[in-house]
């Protein structure tokens, strides 16, 4: 009987999308506007998870600018440099035509993606606070989107809670001053202090490899020495990278340094993949030519990474 009644009174809800789909740490996110609440949808492929924030419960919406756009641009730039070098080598050594077409298409798509990323404006992290706690709205990841969403939400929140008057602030502060303040409730996870030693080691290794690559461009190393050096450098970098990734998790290290560590991982993985795949797909390439272009890739990539790390970490020395 109860079930029947509940079915009868169920009213269809209309949701209007507030943002486009945005990618977060565990899938896609999107924000919808309901009659009296915000709906934050987390889209896994086979299911959807919903969080509702009623307008009357929202205490604050905080947006903080992040450097994700610059990191994405840097990633694009690094891959573009790699593809450009490949294309240059292919042009010089007359690679098969379909391969050249494929890499030119990849280059075009990457350029377009970099331009779109830049035109979408600076990135931000948006947090919504209620009496229960603080929730990150992954769907709002660009400053422009945040401004638009806030402009749409403000009148709705004011209609539910009443418009904010400056006089309310003084009244509220007087009211708060009277009773003893309640113990603070930690809503944000405490971040551990990280001195960034592993990051400095990684930067040092990158700088060392940069110097070696520059030297190698003019005076190639002998066979055994080169193999030993490459192995030591690879294991050293992978060790420093692993240590850096472990220590930077939930730490107070600058976001830029954290992201650069991931970029370094991508840089090394790309170099390893390229050095093993290029001889397979292009068997005519000479070993010295491959080594030369590899050195050029290393010099360019490592210069950008070293400068980026130095800029992010110098204030923490």
């Amino acid at each position, binding site marked *: *009987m*109860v*079930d029947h*009644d*509940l*079915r009868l*009174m*169920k009213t269809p*809800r209309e*949701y209007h999308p507030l943002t486009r789909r945005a990618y977060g740490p565990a899938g896609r996110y999107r924000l*919808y506007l309901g*009659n*009296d609440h915000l*709906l934050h*949808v987390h889209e896994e*492929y*086979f*299911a*959807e*998870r*919903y*969080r*509702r924030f009623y307008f009357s419960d929202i205490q604050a919406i905080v947006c903080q600018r992040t450097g994700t756009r610059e990191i994405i641009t840097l990633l694009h730039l690094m891959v573009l440099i790699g593809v450009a070098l490949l294309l240059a080598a292919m042009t010089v050594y007359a690679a098969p035509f379909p391969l050249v077409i494929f890499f030119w298409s990849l280059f075009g798509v990457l350029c377009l993606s970099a331009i779109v990323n830049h035109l979408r404006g600076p990135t931000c992290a948006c947090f919504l606070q209620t009496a229960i706690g603080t929730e990150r709205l992954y769907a709002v990841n660009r400053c422009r989107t945040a401004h638009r969403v806030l402009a749409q939400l403000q009148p709705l929140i004011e209609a539910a809670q009443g418009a904010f008057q400056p006089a309310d602030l003084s009244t509220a502060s007087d009211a708060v001053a009277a009773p003893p303040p309640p113990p603070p409730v930690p809503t944000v996870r405490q971040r551990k202090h990280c001195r960034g030693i592993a990051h400095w080691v990684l930067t040092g290794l990158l700088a060392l490899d940069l110097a070696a690559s520059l030297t190698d461009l003019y005076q190639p190393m002998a066979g055994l020495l080169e193999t030993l050096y490459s192995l030591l450098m690879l294991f050293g970098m992978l060790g420093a990278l692993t240590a850096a990734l472990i220590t930077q998790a939930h730490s107070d290290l600058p976001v830029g340094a954290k992201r650069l560590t991931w970029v370094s991982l991508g840089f090394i993985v790309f170099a390893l993949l390229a050095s093993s795949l290029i001889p397979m797909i292009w068997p005519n390439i000479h070993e010295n030519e491959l080594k030369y272009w590899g050195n050029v890739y290393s010099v360019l990539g490592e210069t950008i990474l070293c400068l980026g790390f130095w800029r992010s970490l110098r204030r923490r020395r």
Partner: protein
Amino acid sequence: MCDGCGRFLCALCDVELSGQHFCAPCLETGQRKRTLTQLETRRVLYDNIALALAILPVLSCFLFPVTSPLAIAVAIWGWRKPSSLLPRTRVRFVLAILIGLLGLGLSIAWWITIFAS
């Protein structure tokens, strides 16, 4: 008064939800039987499951005889199930059934060819 069962409620027992008033048992029933959409925090997307099952054999054609009937079954079973809270069409179900039927036909033809030869 409870909007679910009509009981009179005291101020303590009254729970307001999107402008409606409920007693605790009605809320519990609504949440358990998924009749109160305001309380739902997760929905399974059967159309995506069916479509994935239908498209999955592209990776390996030997999966067609297994996944195609499964895709059709999931599509038929999930057709009447509550889908996303957000506006969503049933086009994925239709696609899953069509691709599933195609895959089923191909796998039957394949078996017939094998047995005939």
